[in-house]
């Protein structure tokens, strides 16, 4: 994978020293798998940088209104006097960047790009997180059921996954997002669009996770501790929740973290194609789509583009680090 090979190496070499160093202070203490993983993760600087960026982005999204009131303007407010009446480009160098407008203003109507990027983070992260959650819930449930029960249940779920994986997702998403009316399921406006996007993105991404969970379950089910539990009279639900799921948390966490960036990209793509959240609500993909027409004013494209790039990179780096930490044998 993308993590440099020598980093985990040095981490594993460092581990015994740490134990030795710590042995003076305390008697040797058993460490849980979680603690070991956390130590490994903490030493992976790249992953930690990713984590810090993610936390920063989440704070930005949560405190968007506050940030905008301090450093920006209402994301929907027009500042037409800041754009040229002829070229429609922002007046001033660098796309109109000033201390008032940190990222400059949009062409034509002069909306504050900083505020729009900040508010865009809310939509992107919200959709990506909830869609991932939906995928994880469906994927884990069906994966475990398929893996544990096997037989015709496995066949049925397995074929369903094949069908979903073979689905031309983008085409279907475009069609579905296009035909759903503006009021449905008792929702309307942005709430409906966000819910719809979460559903589309989440519902069609579960088989990736589902397959991995099924595979893990298949191998776990044959392990001695499951046999032991069975011989003690444990039944299906107990084995699944007490014996299998705790051992599945690592792959679930890893793949959920890696699914988030792909969901962010997918949401941006849908918004770019005009079937995402409706304007004027700011989204990164929608801003990019608006900017494409004005490609000779690059700053308009740079900020939402950078936001997507940094977010996706941070999640990917963190996800890779997490995988190395939780599953040191994998992909080495």
């Amino acid at each position, binding site marked *: 994978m993308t993590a440099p090979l020598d980093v985990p190496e040095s981490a594993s070499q460092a581990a015994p020293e740490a134990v030795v160093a710590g042995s003076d202070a305390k008697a040797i203490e058993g460490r849980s798998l979680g603690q070991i993983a956390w130590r490994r993760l903490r030493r992976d600087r790249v992953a930690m940088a990713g984590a810090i960026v993610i936390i920063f982005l989440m704070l930005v999204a949560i405190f968007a209104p506050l940030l905008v009131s301090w450093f920006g303007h209402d994301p929907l407010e*027009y500042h*037409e006097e800041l754009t040229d*009446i002829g070229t429609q480009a922002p007046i001033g160098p660098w796309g109109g960047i000033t201390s008032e407008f940190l990222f400059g203003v949009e062409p*034509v109507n002069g909306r504050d790009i900083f505020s729009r990027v900040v508010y865009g983070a809310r939509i992107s992260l919200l959709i990506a997180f909830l869609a991932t959650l939906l995928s994880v819930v469906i994927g884990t449930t069906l994966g475990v059921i398929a893996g544990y029960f096997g037989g015709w249940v496995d066949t049925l779920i397995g074929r369903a996954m094949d069908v979903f994986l073979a689905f031309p997702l983008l085409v279907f998403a475009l069609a579905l997002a296009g035909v759903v009316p503006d009021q449905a399921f008792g929702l309307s406006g942005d709430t409906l669009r966000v819910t719809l996007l979460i559903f589309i993105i989440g519902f069609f991404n579960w088989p990736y996770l589902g397959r991995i969970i099924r595979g893990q379950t298949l191998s776990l089910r044959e392990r001695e501790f499951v046999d032991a539990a069975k011989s003690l009279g444990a039944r299906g639900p107990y084995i699944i929740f007490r014996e299998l799921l705790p051992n599945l948390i690592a792959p679930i966490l890893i793949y959920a973290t890696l699914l988030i960036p792909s969901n962010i990209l997918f949401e941006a793509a849908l918004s770019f194609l005009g079937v995402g959240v409706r304007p*004027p609500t700011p989204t990164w993909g929608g801003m990019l789509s608006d900017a494409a027409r004005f490609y*000779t*004013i690059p700053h308009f494209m740079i900020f939402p583009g950078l936001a997507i790039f940094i977010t996706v990179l941070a999640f990917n780096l963190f996800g890779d680090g997490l995988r190395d930490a939780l599953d040191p044998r994998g992909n080495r």
Partner: protein
Amino acid sequence: MALAACAGSPTQTPGQGQSAPAATGATAGGTEVADAAVGKIYNPSDKKGGTLKMANTADWDSLDPGNTYYGYSLNFARLYGRALLMFKAAPGTDGNTLVPDLAESVGKASDDAKTWTYKLRKGVKFEDGTEVTSKDVAYAVARQFDKEIHPNGPTYLNALLDWPKGYKGAYKSKDADFSSAVETPDDQTIIFHLKEPFGLFDYIMQMPMTMPVPKDKDTGTKYQEHVISTGPYKFEKNEIGKGFTLVRNDQWDPATDPNRPALPDRIEVQTGVNADDVDNRLISGDVHIAVDGLGIGNAALPKVLPDPALKARTDNPVQQRTWYTSIIPDVAPLDNVECRRAIAFAADRNSLYRAYGGETGGVITTSLIPPSMAGYKPIDLYKSEGDKGDVEKAKAALAKCGQPNGFETNIAYRTERTKEKAAAESLQQSLARVGIKLTLKPYPQDDYFALYAGKPSYVKENKIGLAINGWGSDYPDTYGFMQAITDSRDIRDAGNYNLSVKIPEVDKMIDQIKAEPDAAKRADMWSQIDHMVIDQAVVMPSVASKALYMRGKGLTNLFISDSQQMYDYVGVGVQQ
């Protein structure tokens, strides 16, 4: 047609209005001035020779004169075909004049305006040397009747002429007699019989449907691959989808054609070129003219406008097209005129002006009729300081309507049209000031009128109170502009362009206009209709559209005629 009457120079049009007085002399060759081809001739010359290079961002709907409807195609077809009449190749309003082309004179109408007779010039030949007769024109009219084979062209002749019952066009009703519609008593005479009187028939006769087609050379849908020329140029090479080359037609006799200077020796056209690429090639001088007549794109604006040398090579005429918003009275509470007026008062027209492209995209207009058409008058019913909208008056109107706190409704626009999206967003912002909450509803432009905004049942069901709209004229008579968007009797189940104008007085007046022979009175009645429509606030005009054209390098005799609303391709030449 007394079209000179519509030359009234509007007060609000910097493009045409102001440049007209400067039209005393022509621009000297070499010096570049912005708007040098608007209302006057840029670099006048009668020197022949050279190769004119053109590029098209898309492709023709068809090169077949019986199967084409794009404005630029109607302009361009005159290079290789001669219709009965044509618009004079002249700058500005002069270009609105109809002059005889294949015919000796404009049409002679019977007293009831139901029969129109044209005499053909003698000595006009096809590119293969055979003489053009009235039968070739009649055949061209009969073949374009078949809209399965030729779906793109205008349908005027199918609707206007008195075709025999069950007639299916020249291909399916091969030897059928259609003399009830088109008669050719001798080789030089052609007579058209109309179902109903139509005083503007000459305008139809300048369209390429009347360009003669030799029956034995007609290959139906494939005719566009080799159109038999009657004009000064013929096809040398034609690769549909890539481009084509026109060379001089040695059978074209200038003695029979007083209208075409035919300056270049060759015309090379490339099709399907990326729009930004075309703009860049125009700037570098690699291409002379962008044939599609859409003007340069957003991406090129920041490059062209701030650079005086490049800006001097642009022309920015006002077109016969109005961008407006339909306020639809079928949707409550817009059934109340005061609620509609509240929208007209509250809208920030200056912001809409920016949305439609600002300075180079149009001029703020208060009337539906475009400034260069007969009957145009500014209508100052909803004036406001700096055109920013009048919040107080809007609130007062809302109170009268019984919705003092505003209301919610939806606004439709065409997804692909970024300017219309910007206009819808602008309205959303400015109407919010008085509590009118708009939800944006984008629809695909292909089906905008067929399935969405132009379908009354859909509009009512989905409560589309406002729809972004725009209309341009087919021919430069106000009837051709206004009738389609104001006559409520034409409203069908779907596919309407008139989304909101249902005023019985307007319908009545349109009937009076049809019967009125005096052009000045017709113009006056159109002004009244315009006023009624704006007063009822069923239409809110935003801007009279302008396009920003870029001249390539080394062009001569270039001008924009009001009839083509882009560079006139018949007049233009190139420097050697």
